């Protein structure tokens, strides 16, 4: 049943990347329990614009839990209190009348705040660019069914490929580590035959890029897994560790061949 709530928000406001930020308190009045969390912020923002104030900037796009754009820590939890739910699908019925809600951006050195709750997650793209792909130029492949893949492997690969790249794992990790994100891609491609030729160079290159971005390291707390809206498991991290160890033990610099004729 629809109810209405009056809430107090404590929101991180920061003008731009170089300014100091601070928490600012806002009242959110007469909020319907049918609203999504972002719709609640829309209402607050409309009100701010009417008052001639700067609305709260936050990332959002698809609002159906798949694009991975929305990113805020709500009462100390990335994407808020509901498990396996992104902020955009979190509804206000998860809150009670009179609640104070603290809203902060993702906090990590490689995710600098651009404004208010918006951070720059370009580091994730650079990690993928370092090796998170199969090198297959358009037009070269064989027939799709020429390569049978056990259903279980395809399913496990899909479990890992479900990652939406939102960064909640980094935000939740007490060490701001990006290993769940990275290992999801390493697992996705490493579980499939298509990913085998580059399996070991991929993991070395991606871990190298992750370290260069200055993410923290994994100490196996499991916070990432608990925060992941798509249910990516710690097993993917173990799989990545395994591949990385093997890759490092057997690494040799690329063979230099003579030029052909």
């Amino acid at each position: 049943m629809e109810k209405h709530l009056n809430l107090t928000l404590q929101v991180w406001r920061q003008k731009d990347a170089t300014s100091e930020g601070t928490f600012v308190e806002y009242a959110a009045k007469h909020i319907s329990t049918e609203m999504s969390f972002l719709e609640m912020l829309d209402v607050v923002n409309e009100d701010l614009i009417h008052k001639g104030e700067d609305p709260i900037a936050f990332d959002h796009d698809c609002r159906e839990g798949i694009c991975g754009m929305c990113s805020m820590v709500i009462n100390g939890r990335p994407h808020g209190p509901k498990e396996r739910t992104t902020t955009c699908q979190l509804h206000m019925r998860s809150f009670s009348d009179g609640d104070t809600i603290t809203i902060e951006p993702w906090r990590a050195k490689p995710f600098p705040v651009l404004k208010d709750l918006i951070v720059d997650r370009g580091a994730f793209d650079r990690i993928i660019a370092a090796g998170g792909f199969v090198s297959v130029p358009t037009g070269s492949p064989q027939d799709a069914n020429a390569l049978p893949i056990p259903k279980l492997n395809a399913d496990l690969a899909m479990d890992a490929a479900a990652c939406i790249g939102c960064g909640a794992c980094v935000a939740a990790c007490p060490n701001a580590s990006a290993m769940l994100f990275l290992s999801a891609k390493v697992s996705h491609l490493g579980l499939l035959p298509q990913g085998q030729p580059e399996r070991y160079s991929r993991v070395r290159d991606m871990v190298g890029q992750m370290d260069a971005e200055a993410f923290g390291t994994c100490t196996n707390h499991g916070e990432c897994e608990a925060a992941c809206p798509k249910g990516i498991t710690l097993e993917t991290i173990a799989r990545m560790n395994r591949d990385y160890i093997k890759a490092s033990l057997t690494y040799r610099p690329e063979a230099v061949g003579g030029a052909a004729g």
Partner: protein
Amino acid sequence: MELISRTPDGPIEKSWDKHRFDLKLVNPSNKRKYKILVVGSGLAGAAAAATLAELGYEVECFAYQDSPRRAHSIAAQGGINAAKNYQNDGDSIFRLFYDTVKGGDFRAREANVYRLAQVSVNIIDQCVAQGVPFAREYGGLLDNRSFGGAQVSRTFYARGQTGQQLLLGAYQALERQIGLGKVKMFNRHEMQELIVVDGVAKGIIVRDMVSGKVTSHTADAVCLATGGYGNVFYLSTNAKGCNATAVWRAYKKGAAFANPCYTQIHPTCIPVTGDHQSKLTLMSESLRNDGRIWVPKKKEDCGKPANQIPEEDRDYYLERKYPSFGNLAPRDVSSRAAKQVCDEGRGVGPTRLGVYLDFSDAIKRLGAKKIEEKYGNLFEMYERITDENPYEVPMRIFPASHYTMGGLWVDYNLMSTIPGLFVLGEANFSDHGANRLGASALMQGLADGYFVIPYTIGGYLAGIKPGTRISAEDPAVKAAEQSVAERTQRLISIGGKQTPTHFHRELGKVMWEHCGMGRTEAGLKKALEIIPQIREQFWKDVCVPGSGQELNQSLEMAGRVADFIEIGELMCRDALERRESCGGHFREEWQTEEGEARRDDENFCHVAAWEYKGEGNTPQRHIESLKFENVHLATRSYK
């Protein structure tokens, strides 16, 4: 303006091969001397940017999101069609072609659709090689399902996240090229203007959405892959940021806009709950395979809980009206039927704008466990949003704006009426006619990006001398930059009382009412009176706080809304002129006695492409006649 389709002659099976051979090639060592801009990074944009870079062109790619991986292609749930005939059930390229032409209600160009069906096969090969984890059978081979009423199983899928997985495949290919330095990626950049010199596209002006800096990028060709304009309705299944600014700028610079009135309303979305609603969530069409759609027979029952309405008082209206297709009737037909029963006052839910999608029979027949296996994740999503358990009470659904078949007019090479400006994916008008079939959008986006543009753009570039692109100091560039700066300044300085969203909502209401599922001459005329008033109010009373030199989401929104208002007007104009019903365009004056769409092939078997004639002037309607030589014009029937 002349619409030259450049469709090859001869037998349709050979036309694409022949055309590819006829296209001139660019010398491999010259390719790096050409620069191509790709605007948008969804299936079409990412696929094109990656493939063009692989070929050796210098590519720059632009996205308004913070990463190319977030483009709204990612939200597509159902699947992607391909004429592989892996299931041995009689599918073929010709059958996919036939189904698509018929599904589009005979308003698409035959040659384009045939090519789409041909390359559909290559798309699946390409995606599998990239590591897209499509669903598989126990034997390790690819699984297929029948989708959207097709009589063969030709849809490939990756759980309910096919769009996501295909996009990640294209995104990874794109990131690989970025890593190699072949593509320069501009995230959080929004195209604001097209640079046209002597009638030829030569670059774009973009705004860096973080710093507010406006910069120009000149090139030898520009590809727009910026998606559709479904957000003109305010509420739609599109992402909040989806916008039509890029195509609208191109339109105003001389690119014809084709069939703007062809919009698809998807029948199975979660109903609106109140004025605060910001978007609508799609529930996969696959639910209609087991769910039964009904409303109460009597108005006075509508407020009662569903389980207190006895079987004999329920109206399973799709089963009643379309006995052979029943609950699986095509999207346009099902959507209209839902609107009809709600118009009669028999809608359900708090707003009375909803119909039941009931699984109780399926649960009785197959057991709750089986239903959970099939639809568990969708049921979970429904419950997350509505707080109702669909195992116990029927789901409530209502149609919502989903896809736009109209878009910038393109020839067989995907080039618009502005030479050098190519348009890909949902942003163009080419393949779906008046109605798109399920699982065909992903196919078209990837076909355009991976397998069409890489050839056709070469044919265009081969005719241009390398190294002839204009400099950033060119007066045309400066003028375009100037106009962007002025527009921004104008928006900021109005200082009115209403938010951009307010106007967007107003526009959406008018469009939904008069240019939605049912359209009438009177309604469209009324809309054409109201929309200019909304526009006038907007430019008088919109309030955009902050400045242009910073991250300013209100400013972004205001710019997009301003363009939506104008597009809405053009849609109504097009809908008014098209005096027939076809596919997603239903003119209530043109229906059969049973209330079905009635086409007028004599007068409207053509594409209508609109040419901009300047501020304050009525745009001009041009016609490209459609010929059906391989599929014969027939009335769609789903009885």
